[in-house]
């Protein structure tokens, strides 16, 4: 996958997450997978259209999802991934994707993105795309976030 896409979204994590007090970002894994799949419990998926088509999935364990949601809600204690927590995670996926798309547009790549779809459950096996997918694991003070970027390039 083109470096400019990787860089746009990595830059987006580094811009958006710290604004919610989610710090010490470390990319612990970066790999290209044949298909896009996730088996975490919580996932928010955003679709892209325009110059580039595809999906970006932000996945978390239930535990990390609660911590990320808590950070987004000013440190409020989150005991379960309830409606507010889901809304927060969806919003996070929206903000990161939006930021990534804005950076791409500065490089003359124009995309639009759709409302996030939020899925929660056990033993979830997703097939998000048959494109080669870039899977990025980001460790933070709020736990790990797995980002799968599957773009038709």
């Amino acid at each position, binding site marked *: 996958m083109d470096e400019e896409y990787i860089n746009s979204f990595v830059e987006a994590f580094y811009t958006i997450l710290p604004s919610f007090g989610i710090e010490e970002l470390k990319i612990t894994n970066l790999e290209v997978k044949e298909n896009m799949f996730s088996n975490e419990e919580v996932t928010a998926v955003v679709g892209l*259209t325009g110059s580039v088509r595809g999906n970006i999935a932000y996945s978390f364990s239930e535990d990390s999802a609660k911590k990320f949601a808590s950070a987004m809600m000013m440190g409020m204690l989150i005991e379960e991934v309830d409606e507010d927590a889901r809304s927060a995670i969806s919003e996070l996926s929206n903000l990161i994707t939006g930021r990534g798309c804005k950076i791409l547009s500065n490089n003359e790549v124009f995309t639009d993105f759709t409302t996030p779809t939020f899925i929660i*459950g*056990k033993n979830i096996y*997703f097939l998000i795309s048959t494109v080669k997918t870039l899977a990025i694991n980001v460790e933070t003070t709020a736990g790990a976030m797995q980002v799968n970027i599957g773009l038709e390039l």
Partner: protein
Amino acid sequence: MNKEFIQPFVNGVRNVLKKIASVDVKTNEESFEENSEIKSKGVTSIISYSGKINGRFLIDMNSETAISLTRRITGRTYDTAKEPMVLSTVSELNNIIAGDGLTDINNKFSMGLRLVPPIVFTGDNALICLDKIPSESVNINTEYGDIRINIAFERSPEVSG
């Protein structure tokens, strides 16, 4: 939601299952509002679209129905819904059904709607949390089991055509 935006998808399910799988569907075609979440029956595929407005189409069935439809289409048997051909089939059926629905809507109302690649998943007790955009579901019955479809548009589409 204006029924003119629901009917094309119901017709899509009917046309596509008949043409690809020779399966007849039965539905009372009464749609009902979904408010906050949909519990997946076992295999769910979601496809988003954007254009003059954004929206999402969802198709949901249990694992047995997914496996049976795939077997009907490909002539081969499968052990679980996780198998690539089963997931590919549900995903592609979703793509074609949504394409059918949007073709009709675009032609009638000039919405310029375009599809994003679909996603498909299986899971235990998966919940799909619907954003606050209005959506309606329709239950459809086939000889291989029930299918639920859900149609969402981010705001009530204005009929311009």
